[in-house]
């Protein structure tokens, strides 16, 4: 792929090869094809180098080290085969991670995304101050997870935080006072509330952009035909928004697979693992207990789960929307 020998020649020949930029198919003579390749290599080289060194090789390294019992120092020597994976499959914490991850995904789908959709529909109508509202709802997304985590850690301080003061004496939520992040039963819902605060504005923005693609004429025609607001939303807006919704679901799932920062800053996974995620477990084993082999196995598991999910989702749900999902995925991190 890297052809150091042909590169000097290519540099001299660049002008000639560039004359027919679109003709470089497989039918071109060998010499010209090679020169074309060499010139293209110059353009691809920096990106390929970066990508191989810091994305693909680490994944290969994790695959390798996951086969060893390894403390992280020196060469891994104690080969255990799939032992780490067997241990992983039986580990109640890791199984709990999977379960909690699923719970967060489900909660996102039934709570966070509907809130985002409702807000988007609301703000898609003409109203005074719309731009300001949009900017405000989106603001938490641009703050780092660490800032959000530290802030809500203090807001949810049991006994003396703002949250206790606000819910104290209220029906339903009053019982939460004094618990929040410190009680295993309420820690995950509290974490989810913070996630909703942080991310719903991002999904709202995506939906707002998607709503631009719903033609006003169709809505007007539906209204003339006697469809009420709810019917118009259900039968016109929602189907036309479907590709956007599918992408937002995709981003939400990929985001929850790698959930780390917010958890680490607020609870470090506790109390008694009640908010622990795969990434937190990986970090605990890799960098606190120095079981790097085992932690590598967790990395590989995360990798496989993301890959299987992405492939299945793109195969069955996204289909033609693929390009779109791909373009905005990095943004939801």
């Amino acid at each position, binding site marked *: 792929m890297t052809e150091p020998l042909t590169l000097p020649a290519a540099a001299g020949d660049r002008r000639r090869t560039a004359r027919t930029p679109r003709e470089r198919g497989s039918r071109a003579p060998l010499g010209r094809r090679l020169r074309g390749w060499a010139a293209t290599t110059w353009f691809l080289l920096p990106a390929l180098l970066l990508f191989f060194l810091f994305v693909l090789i*680490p994944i290969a390294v994790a695959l390798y*080290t996951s086969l060893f019992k390894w403390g992280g120092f020196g060469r891994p020597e104690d080969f255990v085969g799939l032992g780490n994976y067997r241990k992983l499959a039986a580990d109640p914490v890791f199984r709990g991670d999977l379960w909690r991850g699923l719970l967060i995904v489900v909660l996102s789908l039934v709570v966070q995304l509907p809130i985002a959709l409702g807000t988007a529909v*609301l703000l898609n109508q003409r109203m005074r101050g719309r731009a300001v509202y949009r900017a405000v709802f989106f603001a938490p997304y641009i703050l780092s997870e660490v800032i959000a985590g530290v802030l809500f850690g203090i807001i949810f301080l049991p006994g003396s935080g703002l949250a206790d003061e606000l819910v104290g004496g209220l029906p339903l939520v009053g019982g939460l006072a004094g618990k929040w992040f410190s009680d295993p039963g309420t820690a995950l819902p509290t974490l989810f509330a913070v996630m909703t605060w942080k991310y719903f504005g991002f999904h709202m923005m995506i939906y707002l952009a998607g709503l631009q693609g719903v033609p006003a004429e169709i809505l007007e025609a539906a209204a003339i035909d006697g469809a009420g607001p709810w019917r118009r939303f259900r039968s016109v807006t929602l189907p036309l928004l479907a590709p956007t919704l599918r*992408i937002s679901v995709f981003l939400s799932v990929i*985001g929850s697979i790698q959930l780390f920062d917010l958890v680490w800053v607020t609870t470090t996974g506790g109390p008694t693992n009640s908010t622990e995620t795969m990434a937190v477990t990986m*970090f605990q084993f890799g960098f606190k207990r120095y079981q790097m082999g085992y932690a590598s196995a967790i990395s590989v598991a995360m990798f496989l789960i993301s890959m299987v999910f992405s492939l299945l989702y793109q195969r069955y749900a996204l289909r033609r929307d693929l390009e779109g999902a791909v373009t905005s995925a990095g943004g939801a991190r």
Partner: protein
Amino acid sequence: MRAAAVRGLSRHALVWVLGSFVVVPLLYAVISGFKTTGDLTTDPAGLPHPWKVSNYTGILSSDTFWRQIGNSVLIAVATTLITVAAAALAAFAFARYAFRGREFFFTLFAAGLMFPPAVAVLPLFVLLRSFGLLDNPLGVILPQAAFALPMTLIILRSFFRTIPAELEEAAVMDGCTRFGFFWRILLPMARPALGTVSVLAIVTSWNNFLLPLLVLGGQKWQTIPVGIQQFQGQYATNYALVIAYIVLAMVPAIAFYSVAERQLIGGLTAGATKG
């Protein structure tokens, strides 16, 4: 007419309720930074009495805070330059030239999006340690640039594709080299797309936590998110001071957002609606 007014009003009321959930924590943070910690815990919802500015001024006059800001700026700018340069070159080749393996390599890059960086962070640490890049800003910059590549590349490629081939043919007739066309004609034309991808890369780098936490262990190169966590550990129960620290850390992000809002939202949503 009256019904419409009522509807409008109730819509505003709804938005205000939602908005207060978003704004109250932020407002609480700004106000709490002016309190003493005793004041903060006994009366969390009240105003400070008296208003104490020394939390904020103390942090603003500390070297540590400014050093962390400086580190974050340096790392974000370097990450962005590297990723945009590498991605623009590659996107140019992907968009305009047919070569064997083009689809394969492009799919490989695009697949990079499916893998959250957290997946690779542990082996990255092992790798960076063997390269001697721990406690070195390059140990954060290069991996960040690599992980930002896929999205940058995809956005730039789709932009480069919109530029007509005749333009390049004309430039070549006038004696322009391939790289000359790329550098002197294509890049200046792609300024809006370059702006979008740069803003995305800057924000991602600015907020990144896990990798800098692992790689930049020492004080010297700590970025703002790592610094916040450090500060929280150090002043665990001095809540008012910790809050003042995060409020000040919010300022650059909010300022940047208000300047680059269009590019940021454009970049985040452009792809999502294409389907």
